[in-house]
């Protein structure tokens, strides 16, 4: 094969020494694509160049011939780096496949179904920044109650994803959707505190909506405060609730608050991936996020969360920086 390459290269070089056209150079560059694909290393290219030149210029000064031997010696290391690159590309492909498989496993493990409740419209979106999600949203429900847990592990990627599974099993151990938010946080906090190292923290919000009273009861473990939109006043307020992050100490007293929703009111639960979006000009302000939500408030809750995601994606120049989770509960 190198013989064939030498023949081709010599032809291109011969043409080029005669005429020096752009077309010759274009041929040279296309040829180099082939060389790389056939694993011809740069030191071999120099060697081919030398041999071709010696044939094209029969009275080539001896010094010039010798000079190529030094150049070959110098190029050996470049050739090694290239071969190393090929090994690394294969390794990278294997890792990528493993990550994709892991992301699938995670999706199956953490899957949650958005419940259908009469009188309540629910929308949910959760988009990881890497393959694996370090945010978590989980629903519990029965005929008249629906519970929503939204959590965010400090950090992203695989380590965060591993921790997330913990929350899921904590939630699975609860008796049902009627459980009080402060009890939910207490149970999960004990599990997290027992299982993770001191440097791993999780923020979590838990809210429960009861359709009979249109009441939303909630508690927070250091989580991003949700927004409450009042249709009557056409304004947003933050739902404040104090509470330590999960996993810090075993016994935490969480606060529980309630709010009654009227028709058209909605609650926006999210992770900091929503509020800490950054455009080239700096952080996107909360006011901007509210404006975006408000502009689609008449749409279905699912359309709303999807619109907000795409709008913020655009404002960020499609460079998502953190896992993004957004849930809307809207009273119909």
């Amino acid at each position, binding site marked *: 094969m190198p013989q064939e390459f030498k023949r081709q290269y010599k032809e291109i070089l011969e043409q080029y020494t005669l005429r020096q056209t*752009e077309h010759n150079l274009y041929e040279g*560059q296309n040829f180099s*694509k082939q060389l790389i694909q056939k694993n011809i290393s740069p030191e071999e290219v120099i060697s081919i160049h030398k041999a071709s030149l010696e044939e094209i210029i029969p009275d080539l000064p001896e010094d010039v011939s010798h000079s190529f031997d030094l150049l070959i010696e110098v190029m050996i290391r470049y050739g090694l780096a290239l071969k190393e690159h090929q090994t690394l590309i294969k390794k990278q492909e294997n890792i990528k496949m493993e990550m994709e498989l892991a992301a699938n496993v995670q999706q199956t493990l953490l899957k949650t179904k958005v419940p259908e409740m009469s009188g309540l419209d629910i929308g949910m979106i959760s988009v990881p920044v890497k393959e694996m999600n370090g945010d978590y949203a989980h629903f519990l429900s029965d005929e008249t109650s629906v519970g929503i847990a939204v959590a965010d592990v400090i950090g992203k990627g695989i380590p965060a994803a591993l921790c997330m599974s913990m929350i899921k099993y904590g939630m699975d151990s609860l008796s049902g959707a009627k459980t009080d938010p402060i009890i939910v946080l207490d149970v999960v906090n004990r599990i997290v505190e027992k299982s993770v190292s001191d440097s791993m923290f999780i923020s979590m919000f838990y809210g429960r909506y009861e359709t009979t009273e249109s009441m939303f009861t909630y508690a927070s473990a250091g989580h991003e405060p949700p927004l409450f939109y009042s249709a009557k006043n056409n304004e947003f307020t933050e739902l404040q609730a104090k509470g330590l992050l999960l996993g810090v100490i075993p016994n935490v007293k969480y606060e529980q608050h309630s709010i009654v929703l009227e028709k058209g009111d909605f609650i926006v639960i999210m992770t900091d991936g929503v509020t800490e979006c950054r455009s080239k000009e700096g952080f996107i302000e909360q006011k901007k996020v509210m404006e975006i939500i408000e502009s689609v408030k008449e749409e279905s809750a699912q359309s709303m969360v999807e619109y907000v995601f795409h709008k913020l994606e655009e404002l960020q120049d499609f460079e998502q920086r953190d896992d993004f989770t957004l849930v809307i509960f809207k009273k119909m």
Partner: protein
Amino acid sequence: MNLRSSVDIITEWDIVAARQLGRNEAKEVGFGTVDQARITTAISELARNIYLYAGKGNIEIKQIAEGNLKGLLVIASDKGPGIPDVRKVMEDGYTTSGGLGAGLPGVKRLMDEFKIDTVVGEGTTISATKWLR
């Protein structure tokens, strides 16, 4: 100073014409042989992308200046199908890029600045700048 000139890309021969134009302009700005070859390779890659994926388009070359800095701006535009997943084509070693170091990541590496605007169904405009140091 704002010299501009352009080449329509319709056949493979136009790729060579765009390269020639780019090399001449690069020489005029004062780029050395290696940088000339880099700029030409970038143009080659952009023109080839137009030829292969959009069918036809245009390569525009502009000599530019910013303060004391002189440079060359290459604008490749087409009304082709657009790029549905920009993140993917900018990924290293993405198979359709045609192998090692090729494709748009290669163009980005060869130049100093790189910007891509693409709308699916409407077309793509890529601007790439190289500054003379």
